[in-house]
């Protein structure tokens, strides 16, 4: 039986002091705003990131509703452009990229390796302030009238023609990028130097491996994006042609620099999700992760290959046929490490004792939707097919399957899995399972029709469309409404659990992993005594008899 170090009635441990944890250690505002505790910083991130998610969600809900009729039911073209740009910028730069590293990674990476904190706690706090500054900056740009370039800021539109808030939005993106970069730097040094005794590289949980790989992408890609955006800003301000052909520049250079970051950024977004799923699936299947080393190495395979496929966004932009051929072939290669992961998760499930708690439902949803969306990616990597579906809703559906179906579901899985550890409370079991089902169904109904509409030729980023696509758009909008309900529900039952949830105890899921061996919520120093690791992770097969009487 697990011991409850927190939230036990006083009678359970007579004479014991009231347990101190990272939440009740101090209450002053300064103790939060100047904290160097990685767990508090994770919570500091959780609030604005959640807010950003809902702002981005509201923006796209309005444009989605507007697409109910071919003429555009709600908003005019200009507003529509601003809405999808807000959605894209906020969701990519301020939600998808930072969410799992900054919230779950910040909280659990040190705990999973048995450390007291990250290597550079003050830099960790600095990254939070940078995130807030960047997010605030972008929010001001939105309030000042918005920006209509799309999240890709393609030149020469962004540098010569568009609304002036481009500079502000980009500055926000650059600042937020440096926040992620410092987080990545912190993670790499932490994993190298602060592992607990006995925790060698092949005893690290897969989540740590994926965080490590993600950090590498941050470090190598973010500076290039920052420089590309800085050059656009300077071009706008001083009218010097770096990217604008009218002034002697080359717009393709912007696309190269932009996608050199933004394609690896896709893996920044999906790798942490893969890490979460690799934790959740073995736990709720009560079985060791199949092919641990292959799953670990494939994270690095994805991170490395991810740097050599960027031009597949530019097949119709005027790059040479030979370059396109090479980038097409390299893009197919990314499917190999991705498939290794999917096969290993499936093999883990094979002949295991699965239970369907909410984290597991989200994780299984991830595997299904990621596989589905990933396969669509192979269509897009094919040169001939890409000519046909480029810039259509087929592309939109593809990356939403990965980003929303994959990443958001994985984040939900992780949040549900670790919520008892973060807060010490359990949320409503049936509501959370229901939410998982609602999100899965809503998601499918939203994005599956977009594949059809896109394949039939409906272009993206238009507020009007030909009437024959209406049926698909109505289906999609209906699905989005269901999806919206699914996203709002957790706000209620998770926040509610803080008051009415039953105490979780140390290890409600009977999971292996160091983070479960300490109290919930953990003390500020994470562990009562520094842990020593003697076994590889995911030894569920050994503990079966003990945990499931």
């Amino acid at each position: 039986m697990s011991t409850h170090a927190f939230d036990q009635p006083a009678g359970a441990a007579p004479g014991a002091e009231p347990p101190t944890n990272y939440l009740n250690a101090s209450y002053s505002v300064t103790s939060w705003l100047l904290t160097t505790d990685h767990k508090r910083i994770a919570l500091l991130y959780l609030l604005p990131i959640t807010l950003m998610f809902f702002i981005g969600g509201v923006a796209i809900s309005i444009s989605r509703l507007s697409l109910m009729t071919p003429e555009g039911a709600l908003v005019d073209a200009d507003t529509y452009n601003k809405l999808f740009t807000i959605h894209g910028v906020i969701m990519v730069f301020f939600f998808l990229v930072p969410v799992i590293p900054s919230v779950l990674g910040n909280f659990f990476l040190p705990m999973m390796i048995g450390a007291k904190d990250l290597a550079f706690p003050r830099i960790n706090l600095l990254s939070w302030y940078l995130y807030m500054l960047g997010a605030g900056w972008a929010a001001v740009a939105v309030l000042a009238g918005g920006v209509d370039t799309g999240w890709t800021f393609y030149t020469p539109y962004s540098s010569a023609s568009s609304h002036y808030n481009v500079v502000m939005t980009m500055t926000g993106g650059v600042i937020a990028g440096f926040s992620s970069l410092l987080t990545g730097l912190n993670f790499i040094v932490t994993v190298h130097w602060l592992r607990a005794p006995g925790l060698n590289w092949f005893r690290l949980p897969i989540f740590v491996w994926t965080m490590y790989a993600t950090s590498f992408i941050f470090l190598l890609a973010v500076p290039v994006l920052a420089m590309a955006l800085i050059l656009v800003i300077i071009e706008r301000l001083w009218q010097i042609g770096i990217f604008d052909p009218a002034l002697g520049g080359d717009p393709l250079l912007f696309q190269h620099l932009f996608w050199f970051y933004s394609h690896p950024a896709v893996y920044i977004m999906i790798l942490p999700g893969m890490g979460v799923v690799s934790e959740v699936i073995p736990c709720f299947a009560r079985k060791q992760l199949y092919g641990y080393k292959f799953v670990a190495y494939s994270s690095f395979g994805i991170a490395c290959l991810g740097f050599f496929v960027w031009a597949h966004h530019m097949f119709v932009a005027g790059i040479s046929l030979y370059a396109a051929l090479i980038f097409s072939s390299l893009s197919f290669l990314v499917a190999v490490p991705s498939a290794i992961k999917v096969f290993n998760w499936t093999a883990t499930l094979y002949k295991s004792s699965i239970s369907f708690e909410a984290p597991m439902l989200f994780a299984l949803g991830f595997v299904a939707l990621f596989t589905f969306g990933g396969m669509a990616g192979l269509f897009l990597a094919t040169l001939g097919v890409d000519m046909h579906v480029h810039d259509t809703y087929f592309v939109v559906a593809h990356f939403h399957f990965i980003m929303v179906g994959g990443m958001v579901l994985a984040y939900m899985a992780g949040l549900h899995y670790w919520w008892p550890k973060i807060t010490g409370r359990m949320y409503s079991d049936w509501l959370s399972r229901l939410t998982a089902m609602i999100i899965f169904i809503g998601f499918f109904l939203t994005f599956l029709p977009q594949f059809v509409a896109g394949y039939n030729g409906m272009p993206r980023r238009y507020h009007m469309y030909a009437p024959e696509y209406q049926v698909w758009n109505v289906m999609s909008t209906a699905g989005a409404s269901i999806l919206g309900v699914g996203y709002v529900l957790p706000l209620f039952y998770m926040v509610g659990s803080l008051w009415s949830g039953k105490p979780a105890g140390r290890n409600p899921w009977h999971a292996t992993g160091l983070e479960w061996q300490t109290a919930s919520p953990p003390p500020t120093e994470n562990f009562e005594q520094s842990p020593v690791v003697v076994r590889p992770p995911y030894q569920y097969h050994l503990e079966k008899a003990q945990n499931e009487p």
Partner: protein
Amino acid sequence: MSPDNGPLTVPHDESLEHTILVRHRLEEQYENLDQQHQAAALGMWVFLATEVMFFGALFLAVAIYRFLYTVEFEKASERLNWMIGGVNTLVLLLSSLMIVLAVHYARHGRRKRIVLFLGLTALLGVCFLAFKGLEYYIDYQENLIPGWRFDAGEWVTREGLRPDQVPHVKLFLFLYWVMTGLHGLHVTIGICVVLVIMAMAWRGKFSPEYYAPVDVTALYWHFVDVVWIFLLPTLYLLGTHHW
């Protein structure tokens, strides 16, 4: 283990124990000073890797446009002041030697020597900036600032370029300003950091057991030096310069 109080320590207050206001020499997440030193060094190396990528995008832009607009880039480069650029290279190389000596004496715990050589490093950094400022002033007088002081006609009449080639000259000069400007910013930050470390050394914060801040600052300083070594040929040494 009772950690020594560092320079930023405030009176101990339990509610602030895990905030940035309280700082010990051995931070709580580390086992010992050696581990802390190694982590700091790795952190700086990783940071420098990101800096390489940061400047890398600019070097890529120069490479591409130099390939596309060879003639204009060489003409524009010939107008830059390679002599000041060359002297500044020597100044920076010398400053790197000074900071190496500072690290050497930090390793042996020679407090006054550390302060001396860190001071010389900062002084040479200031020299570099002064020369750079002089150079910028000459550029200003010669109308080499696109977007502010630039005479398109002069490039057609004096240098014999076609009018449609003049934007490429502006492009080169623009890259010159951005790259040297960013580098100058890095030097300025470096001087500030060196001065802070110098003050810490003056107060005796370092010992042969722990001198990680000196070590890590030196890494950064060398990086800034190396960037300049690449900037000099990339920007100043195109085309045929005349005395």
